[in-house]
């Protein structure tokens, strides 16, 4: 390559890299990803009766295996499979849609989500939002719980990391639709998400809030905060079952 070709290549590469964040602004044409996407799904879910989808959650349907087969009968999660009980309906529905269109990468979840209808996603989302179940999580990553607690309650402004509680609520039980509960979440799952935001495998955080935080946190910090959050009492149901 002559000099001009080198310059051209470098320029193209630089432009491409610069365009990445801009491209992330609209992740997929079919999936609401604006700031209040979770609210949009929650509003749609209000018309769906979760009781109609309880059987799908517990027993599955043909090719769609049951949610409970991996996430547990009480939606409590296990290992790197997340707790679903007590997450908001809007958040769950947004994630199912993200799997269905490939915005979130997980082969098992993509397989299932591709086969679900919109109503099924919304019904399952409400089913788990209304579920209250005790914690089945605890520290398992060898994280420094004192450091994790510091990050959860106060954050670390030296590295521009706000407290987890400053967005996820004063008990980490979530805030309305967009900010999921983190309390009693399986630590391997929390850790995997922080890692996925760091390396770009997960990008569907509003205003890229979690990307920045995940980049700033060291591996040890990620373990610490994941383990600490696993020690907290589980969230209550986000909505009454007969809501």
């Amino acid at each position, binding site marked *: 390559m002559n000099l001009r070709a080198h310059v051209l290549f470098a320029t193209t590469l630089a432009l491409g890299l610069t365009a990445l964040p801009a491209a992330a*602004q609209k992740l997929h044409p079919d999936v609401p990803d*604006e*700031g*209040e996407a979770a609210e949009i799904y929650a509003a749609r879910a209000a018309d769906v009766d979760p009781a109609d989808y309880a059987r799908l959650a517990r027993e599955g349907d043909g090719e769609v295996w049951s949610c409970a087969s991996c996430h547990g009968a009480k939606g409590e999660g296990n290992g790197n499979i997340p707790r679903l009980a007590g997450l908001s309906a809007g958040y769950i529905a947004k994630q199912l849609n993200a799997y269905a269109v490939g915005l979130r990468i997980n082969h098992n979840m993509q397989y299932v989500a591709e086969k679900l209808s919109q109503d099924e996603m919304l019904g399952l989302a409400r089913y788990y939002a209304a579920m209250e179940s005790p914690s089945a999580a605890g520290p398992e990553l060898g994280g420094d719980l004192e450091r994790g*607690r510091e990050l*959860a*309650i*106060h*954050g*670390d*402004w*030296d*590295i*521009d*990391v*706000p407290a987890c*509680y*400053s*967005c996820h*609520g*004063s*008990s980490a*039980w*979530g*805030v*309305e639709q*967009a*900010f999921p509960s983190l309390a009693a979440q399986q630590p391997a799952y929390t850790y995997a998400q922080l890692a996925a935001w*760091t390396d770009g495998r997960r990008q569907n955080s*509003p*205003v*890229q*809030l979690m990307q*920045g*935080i995940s*980049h*700033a*946190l*060291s*591996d*040890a*910090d990620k373990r610490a905060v994941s383990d600490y959050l696993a020690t*907290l*009492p589980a*969230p*209550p149901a*986000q909505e009454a079952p007969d809501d």
Partner: protein
Amino acid sequence: MTDPNPQPTRDPGRTTGRRAIGAAIAAAALVAVGAGLYALGIYDPIAQSPDRGTHQAGAIELAKDEARADHLASRDAYTNDPAAGPPTLPVGQDGYFVPRTVDEAPDNEFGDSVRRGYEVFTNTQTNASQHVGNGMNCANCHLGAGTVPESAPMWAAAVEYPAFRGKNKIINTMEDRIHGCFTYSMNAQNSPSGTPPPRDGDIYKDLQSYFYFMAEGAPLEGNLPGRGYPVPPEPAQGYDISRGEAVFEANCAVCHSSDGSGRQDPNGRWIFPALWGDDAYNWGAGMHRVNTAAGFIKHNMPLGRGGSLTDQEAWDVAAYINSWERPADPRQLRDGTSVAETDAQFHEHTPNFYGDVIRGDLLGDGVPGEPTEQAPSTGRPLGEQTASR
């Protein structure tokens, strides 16, 4: 059984040996090139070492500790011998003043006051509940419990009072200043007591203890870098409410909600403060000025991503937020004046929308707000219950 068509053979040992040597040389060359590129830092953006963050945070923390230790040593040397020269200013890697933190407060009555002040500052909703008439805590606008530069840090404010303020045209002590915060930013007129904390009360004393303790080593009237909210220069295009609406929807609504009403958690605690409406700061608060809000937003919002908005976006979204109705200016109610009179008296010399007609509404006559019947029904956040030091 023998192969009827044996393949012609080369000397296997010799060929394999050559290949091995060639492969080793090639591999060594690749490693050398890769190591060279790594040393140049070319891979850093795409392949961060997993513990990069810890090293960074640890190094920042270490530099702060060293700066404070140097300061204390030089201060003590100077106390014992003026010839030792003046104490050093404790500054971190970023050049900003390093305040003392609440966990360094002494184990005595003054330290107790510092710790109480910290609790009031970070959890004003609960610990000064009788005098807060909206969803705000001090730490909503003074991030990191008042420690973060360019977020109106209290270590800088502590060494700036008493001072004459144009806002009320008198000498203000720090107590006067805090009284003003409760009157305007915390909208005390709508609180259970209906007033800011009573003069000379413990809330002022404890908050001042906290600020004073934090600022040890800062020069009086130091005009320290990082003080206040540095206002970005007003863009050539000025500021525009409709451009600001787009910025708000894209960057702010997820937390503060599209109607600016903020969000509460399942415990009923305010997590994202309301930016307008009856749970927000009132028309007398400094944040209702477009320039002040632009400064805060530019350096601190979205939370954890300060500096990510352009100057233009910060000014535009500050204008949008402050183009909605909010609780009335308490000075208007106190003096029984009209919005127009109050506008002329208090709002003339700054960029703001008080007294303007926007979307067909006269801004300034205030949202209807019933005085809160009772204190917010919240206790300490779970983790904080065991946090008292």
